């Protein structure tokens, strides 16, 4: 009994009832399509998040106040005041620290900003002139503030494009105009280039002012919010991390690194955390899609059981004429695998198309991995075998007499 024979007979049997075949296949098409679309969109999302995080600056490590431990003795949030501007300056000038290219001290709060009749609630970021270098920020007009502005705590501001459109209208140039932050007047000296990003990651909805101005005049604090450190190269990130860590420990007079009053994390840590989140989401969504695939498989099993019952006489006849169990099994398995395999291929086309359209729509990079296609095709074939097995066994074990008598 050659395979071509089995295949031809399976194809013939399936083409006899086209509507039923199409409907049975549809379950698998939707299941496989959903899995491929969601995995592909998940991967696209992951890539988008990665590239956004990388656009925040390369070779970057960040120091934030607060203990690294997440245990019971963690300090209250109000206690996160352990980093000072002097810490940041020390990192740059200390002879112990050799692997650091640039240091940026930052203090960030949200505040109400007004210009004329317009106002917006935005992020106020106290920074140093090193910020554009460290965070890969460029100017679309005007310039960033200088060391002199920081030293004299002058009231100048650099605004992001989102703030420009909120306060002055889209496309206008606010350089030279005045904005008010918490009743203090600042003159706008520059506008940053758009970096894109949405929600948490929106880097355009921001106002930069000298960190000293932010500390003394605006918020009345002596600490800073975080220190961004740029390592000289990617290879030196871990070295920079250690050097900065030990320097700050000694500056804060802490001997045990486990009780440090600050935390250091690198871009990689952030990427890792982001990847973990997106992978979890992808896995969750794929899991839901896999359930629809399971339902599709059960549909196949149902149809195959109906087919076996309908063709009881035929099975009996085939057995009477000398068909062995093996042949009956392979005949019905071929039918179910053919159903699911065709469903898998159609589902792959559907899923790819769907994820392409959606990624265009929500402006994600489109990506489809070969592995998810291979998986879909393999899984669809596997489902054919898995859910076709019981009906095929049922057919093969029919008694030829009973089967011939069946009306």
């Amino acid at each position: 009994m050659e395979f071509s024979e089995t295949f031809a007979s399976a194809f013939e049997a399936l083409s006899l009832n086209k509507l039923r075949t199409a409907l049975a296949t549809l379950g698998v098409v939707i299941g496989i399509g959903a899995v491929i679309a969601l995995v592909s969109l998940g991967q696209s999302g992951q890539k988008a998040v990665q590239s956004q995080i990388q656009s925040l600056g390369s070779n970057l490590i960040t120091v934030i106040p607060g203990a690294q431990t997440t245990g019971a003795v963690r300090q209250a949030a109000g206690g996160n005041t352990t980093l000072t501007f002097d810490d940041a300056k020390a990192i740059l000038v200390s002879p112990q620290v050799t692997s650091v290219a640039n240091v940026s001290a930052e203090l960030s709060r949200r505040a109400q900003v007004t210009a004329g009749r317009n106002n917006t609630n935005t992020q106020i970021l106290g920074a140093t002139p090193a910020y554009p270098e460290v965070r890969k920020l460029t100017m679309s007009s005007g310039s960033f503030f200088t060391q002199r502005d920081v030293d004299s705590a002058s009231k100048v501001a650099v605004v992001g494009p989102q703030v420009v459109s909120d306060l002055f209208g889209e496309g206008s140039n606010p350089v030279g105009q005045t904005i008010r932050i918490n009743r203090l007047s600042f003159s706008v000296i520059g506008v940053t280039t758009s970096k894109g990003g949405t929600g948490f990651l929106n880097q355009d909805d921001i106002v930069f002012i000298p960190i000293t101005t932010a500390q003394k005049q605006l918020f009345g604090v002596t600490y800073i919010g975080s220190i961004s450190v740029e390592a000289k190269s990617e290879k030196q990130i871990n070295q920079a991390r250690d050097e900065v860590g030990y320097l700050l420990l000694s500056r804060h007079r802490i001997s045990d690194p486990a009780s440090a009053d600050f935390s250091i994390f690198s871009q990689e840590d952030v990427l890792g955390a982001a990847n973990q989140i997106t992978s979890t989401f992808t896995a969750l969504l794929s899991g839901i899609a896999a359930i629809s695939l399971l339902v599709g498989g059960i549909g196949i099993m149902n149809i195959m059981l109906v087919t076996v019952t309908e063709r009881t006489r035929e099975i009996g006849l085939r057995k009477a004429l000398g068909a062995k169990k093996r042949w009956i099994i392979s005949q019905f398995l071929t039918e179910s695998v053919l159903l699911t395999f065709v469903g898998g291929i159609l589902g792959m086309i559907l899923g790819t198309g769907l994820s392409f359209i959606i990624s265009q729509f929500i402006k994600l990079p489109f990506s489809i991995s070969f592995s998810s296609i291979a998986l879909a095709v393999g899984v669809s074939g596997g489902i054919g075998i898995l859910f076709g097995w019981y009906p095929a066994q049922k057919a093969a074990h029919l008694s030829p007499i009973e089967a011939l008598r069946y009306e």
Partner: protein
Amino acid sequence: MADTIIQVSHLSKVYKNEAMETVALSDVSFHVHKGEFVAIMGPSGSGKSTLMHILGALDLPTSGEYILDGENVEKLSADKLAEIRNKKIGFVFQAFNLLPRTTALKNVMLPMVYAGVSKEERVKKAKKYLEMIGLGDRMDHTSSQLSGGQQQRVAIARALVMNPALLLADEPTGNIASVQAEEVMAIFQQLNNEGHTIVMITHEPDIAEHAKRIIYVRDGKITGDSHDHRQRIAAKK
């Protein structure tokens, strides 16, 4: 004996379910030699269908021995039985049992598919037997395009195509008009004249008339076995 096709000794078949045992056949013994044309006759419930199933290797006896063309059949596995049916037995059923929506040619080819005969050989042989049976011009017709008599002739061609030791017919004229029934019986007689061994189950005396020997079955036992026409006619009355 070299020319014994069927050798049945002390054959019994008991059907069991939870409540009761039903004896379908009890202690049946007989021989059929090569070239015989035997009709097995009996009223419904006599056990003749059970006997036909066992002779056809579709079912196994509860006890006793059945040797078909030199091979012991009574204790074989399901797959081995399938092989015996394929190689040694040609079935002709009351309801024809052709595959629906399938051409006459493909129907006749089916047993050869299971025997692993090559495609060219299958087509060649199937055509030969269809022509022999007088349906050379209907090879591409599906069963619904053929009359009852024609369908039964396709079934006969299918039964012959593996050149079986035994042609086993179960009420072969039960579902067809009497004129066509005569045609079918004429084919059986001709096949018998050519040397084919035929066992036919029937409850119709005038169909049984066409056989050379009649075995009467009643209540699971053989009640008569005659090679003699007069005896047969006497039994009918």
